[in-house]
C-alpha cells in the first residue's frame, strides 16, 4: 500500500512566488503563465497496517499543521484540474527520504515502512493551447537539473 501525503503551505509560499517571478520576468513566460503553486509529496510504501491510522501517524511526523495543509490518498494519486502538475524528484540517492524512512521506522516504530519517496509538485497554471509542452519547457528550463533531478507530468 502506498500512502501519498500532499503538503502545501497555508501561508504565502515564497519559493513558488520566486519561481513565478523568474519565469515571468526573466524567462519570457509572462503571456502563458497565470500562476505557480507548490506542494511537497511524500509517497510511503507500507506492507501492513490500517491505512487511516498509519496516515495519521505519518502526518503528525511530516506536517506542521500550524503553517501547512495536507491531503492523504492511498495508492492512486489524483490532482485537481486547472493546472499542470509537474513532479520533480531526485534520480540520485535522496538522503532526506532515507532519513524520513528511518525516522518513521525507528521513532514511530512502524517496521512495515518499506520505502519513502519524496518529491516537489509544481502546479503550473498555464494559458496555452499545449500546456504539457509548455510545462516540459518550464521544467527543463528551471525546475530541474537533469544531472540529479527527473520530472514527470502527472496526468
Amino acid at each position, binding site marked *: 500500500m502506498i500512502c501519498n501525503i500532499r503538503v502545501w503551505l497555508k501561508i504565502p509560499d*515564497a*519559493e513558488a512566488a*520566486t*519561481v513565478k517571478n*523568474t519565469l515571468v520576468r*526573466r*524567462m519570457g513566460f509572462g503571456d502563458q503563465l497565470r500562476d505557480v503553486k507548490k506542494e511537497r509529496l511524500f509517497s510511503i510504501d507500507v506492507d501492513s497496517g490500517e491505512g487511516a491510522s498509519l496516515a495519521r501517524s505519518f502526518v503528525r511526523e511530516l506536517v506542521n499543521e500550524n503553517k501547512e495543509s495536507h491531503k492523504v490518498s492511498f495508492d492512486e494519486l489524483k490532482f485537481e484540474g486547472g493546472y499542470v502538475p509537474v513532479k520533480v524528484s*531526485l534520480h*540520485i*540517492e535522496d*538522503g*532526506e527520504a532515507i*532519513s524520513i524512512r528511518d525516522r518513521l521506522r525507528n521513532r514511530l516504530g512502524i517496521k512495515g515502512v518499506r520505502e519513502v519517496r519524496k518529491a516537489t509538485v509544481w502546479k503550473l497554471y498555464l494559458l496555452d493551447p499545449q500546456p504539457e509542452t509548455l510545462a516540459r519547457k518550464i521544467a527543463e528550463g*528551471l*525546475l530541474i*537539473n*537533469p*544531472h*540529479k*533531478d527527473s520530472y514527470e507530468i502527472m496526468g
Partner: protein
Amino acid sequence: MKIAVVQFPGTNCEHETLVAVKAVGMDGEVFRWNRPAEELCGFDGFVIPGGFSYQDRVRAGAIASKEPVMETLHEEAEKGKPIIGICNGFQILVESGLLPGTGRLDMALAQNVMITGGRIVRRGYYCDWIHLRHEAEAGRCCGSFLMGVGTVLQIPIAHGEGNLVTTTPGLIERLNEEDQVVFRYCDSSGEEGSEFPVNVNGSTESIAGICNPEGNVLGMMPHPERAFFPRQLSSFNSGMKEGEAGPGRLVFESMKRYIEVRA
C-alpha cells in the same frame, strides 16, 4: 584594475571577499544584481561570492543564474576577463553554463554525501577546514595562476551542496584531459582519498574546483577569503604572524597577476 564582487539577494560573503580583493592591491566594489547589467563592462574581473542566493530556492544557484547580470558575465567571459565563483558562486556558474564552459548545464553540485568505509555516515551541510591540492599547471587558471602543480592549501568549506555529479558522457575524462580540474580535496600531505573526511562531500574524483577550457572562469567550493589573514586561521597556523599571507590569499593574488599578464 577594478573588480566587481557580484551580490545577489542572499549572498553573504561579499564584504570579506571585497576586503580580500582590496588587500592584494586591486580596486573593487560590491555590484548588486539589480544594477544595470551593462555597467559590469567597466570592470576588469569578477568574483561571485558565497552565500545562499535567493535562499537556494528551487536549488542552489538556479534563480540567480537567470538574472541579466549573468548574461553580461557570459559576454565578459568571452572577452577573456577573469571570473571566480566561490561556493554559491560556483553553483551559480554551473547553473548558468559558464562552467564547465560549454554554455549548457553539464553537471550538478548535488547534496553532500559523506562516505566512510563504504557506508554513508552523514549528509548535507558541513563546515570545516579541509585540504586542497592544486592540480593544474601554473598559469592555467585565473584563480590559481601563481600555484604550481601539487600546491596544498588549507582552507575552510561551508556548504550543503558541493557534490559534483554529472550524467554527461565523458565529461570527467574531458575535464582531466583538458587540465580543467583545478583543485581536489586531499589530506594534509596532499594525498587524495575517495572517502570522508578527505573527500568531504562525496564529489566525483574528489573535485573541489574546475575552470573553463580557456582558464578565465574558475569555480571552487572552498572559501579562500576566509583563509586570507592569519587572524582568520585556525590553531594549526597559529604560528603565523600578522602580515603574513594566509593560504587563501594566493587565489586573489593569482587573479591580480592574471589580469596584469593579459593587459
